[in-house]
């Protein structure tokens, strides 16, 4: 709880620091603050502390996810030091909004009441609507923000209506109680409850960009400032899935059959659409948007193969995925700068020639995303498949595996560009700090893959 409060305060402090017009102190403050939050979160480990009439429960699940999101945010801020130096205005707001969003994310991982879930989602989303439009003069940023906002609100409307329906039937917002209420039907839910649950699920599915509710994500990812995209692709996704899992686990399990089937359909569609559409992308950010949809599919697979270890796999997968994605976006920014702002995949050409070490670690990160040993990405996918196959979902597993091949294809498309020689690039400038973090993330991905296959939860 103290962590939650501290982050809120941190956001406000950062806003005030913005008044001093001294940009250089912002990141140190933000990062220090986050480190303190990290420690505060960890202090609650194993306590299962409950707040607000049990509407919020900080159990190990939520702490683990919170810590993973804090770490990712710290990495993003570390990169931000360099990134925001070039920005003139509103840097403090950028930091503050991200911190606020993080607060929302904390709520999403620790709710046990639908009200808190709603609040969490909204606290996460509203700063993001603003962040996505961060480049005020840019049409694309504008469009991203607008689309995100419109579709997000639209989804929220359904989400709310769903909550209302479920509330009408069960007279409660508490997930454990809803679970008890649902159990009495033995799977034959009345249509109203069913539709209510479906709307709730769709509301959350929208946030994590699961097909067919993914339409916003490619456009928003592409249009938003890259660092924000990195944040959306990682922290928001992690929070979304944590919330999703918590929702299912605390409230809905065992899943009513029609709902479960609907979710399987979503999984399949995400795998299909995400991977296949990514295949033909030439814009790096869009590629990552679609691949994020695909990864959503894999995570859904783990989530739906209900097993004790699902949560752990979920955490591992999202963390590892984030750990590889963030540095890649940064590398993309750096390369983009060197090629007059182009965003195609071809700008990676010649990277190996110019910066061999960065290229090698980029490769490692991409390999991890593609899910090839010995990287953590592989271990994550492996565990997902172990789960789904152990639970007997053979057909969807083999489909997912084939889709993983497609995934390898487009990630290695980028790899191939990296090692293709070309000389129309300006020099790529990589600050020591950035290089250090990129390399560190690369090493972390490998180390996680070889020595750590499970994060404590």
């Amino acid at each position, binding site marked *: 709880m103290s962590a939650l409060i501290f982050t809120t305060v941190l956001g406000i402090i950062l806003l005030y620091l913005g008044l001093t017009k001294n940009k250089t102190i912002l990141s140190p403050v933000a990062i220090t603050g986050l480190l303190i939050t990290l420690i505060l979160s960890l202090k609650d480990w194993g306590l299962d502390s409950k707040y607000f009439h049990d509407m919020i429960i900080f159990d190990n699940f939520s702490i683990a996810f919170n810590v993973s999101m804090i770490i990712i945010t710290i990495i993003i801020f570390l990169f931000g030091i360099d990134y925001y130096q070039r920005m003139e205005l509103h840097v403090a707001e950028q930091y503050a909004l991200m911190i606020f969003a993080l607060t929302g994310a904390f709520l999403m991982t620790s709710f046990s009441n639908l009200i808190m879930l709603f609040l969490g989602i*909204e606290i996460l989303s509203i700063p993001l*609507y603003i962040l996505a439009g961060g480049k005020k003069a840019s049409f694309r940023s*504008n469009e991203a923000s607008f689309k995100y906002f419109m579709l997000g609100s639209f989804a929220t409307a359904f989400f709310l*209506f769903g909550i*209302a329906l479920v*509330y009408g039937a069960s007279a409660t917002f508490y997930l454990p109680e809803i679970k008890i209420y649902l159990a009495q039907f033995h799977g034959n839910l009345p249509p109203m409850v069913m539709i209510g649950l479906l709307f709730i699920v769709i509301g959350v599915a929208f946030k994590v960009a699961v097909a067919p509710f993914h339409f916003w994500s490619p456009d928003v990812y592409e249009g938003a400032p890259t660092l924000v995209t990195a944040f959306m692709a990682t922290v928001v996704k992690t929070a979304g899935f944590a919330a999703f899992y918590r929702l299912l686990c605390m409230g809905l399990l065992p899943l009513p059959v029609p709902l479960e089937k609907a979710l399987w359909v979503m999984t399949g569609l995400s795998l299909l659409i995400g991977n296949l559409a990514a295949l033909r992308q030439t814009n790096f950010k*869009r590629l990552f948007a679609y691949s994020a949809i695909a990864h959503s599919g894999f995570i859904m697979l783990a989530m739906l193969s209900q097993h004790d270890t699902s949560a752990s796999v979920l955490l591992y997968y999202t963390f590892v995925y984030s750990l590889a994605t963030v540095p890649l976006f940064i590398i993309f920014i750096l390369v983009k700068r060197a090629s007059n702002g182009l965003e195609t995949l071809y700008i990676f050409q010649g990277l190996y020639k110019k910066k061999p070490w960065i290229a090698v670690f980029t490769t490692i990160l991409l390999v991890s995303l593609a899910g090839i040993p010995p990287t953590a990405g592989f271990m994550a996918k492996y565990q997902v498949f172990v789960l789904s196959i152990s639970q007997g979902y053979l057909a969807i597993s083999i489909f997912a595996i084939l889709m993983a091949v497609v995934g390898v294809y487009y990630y290695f498309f980028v790899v191939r560009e990296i090692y293709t020689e070309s000389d129309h690039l300006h020099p790529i400038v990589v600050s020591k700090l950035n290089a250090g973090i990129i390399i560190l993330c690369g090493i972390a991905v490998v180390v996680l893959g070889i020595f750590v296959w499970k994060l404590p939860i």
Partner: protein
Amino acid sequence: MKEISSAIQIIPLDSYIMLSVALFSIGLMGVLFRRNIIAVLMCLELMFNSANLLLTAFSSYHSDPAGQVFVFFIMIVAAAEVAVGLSIVVMMKRNVESVDINLLNRLKW
């Protein structure tokens, strides 16, 4: 409080549900078919409020205040959301000189 509650319960619950669904659908249709962003925002608001209405009615019938508390949360969040939304619209108007929802469609495929 009791009187309000009983006053609410004069009308059967089904009618509330019907009304909310109708409101929701109207909002939905509005969102789908209007192209003026302001109108669309208003329709969104309508959808939110249909949920609010539903929650209130249920809360009253269940004699459970939680539903009404939620309504307040929703109203606050909706306000914040609309504030952000309107600012986005302003930004957009400034950039493209229009409030047509389909005008911004450069990001695709």
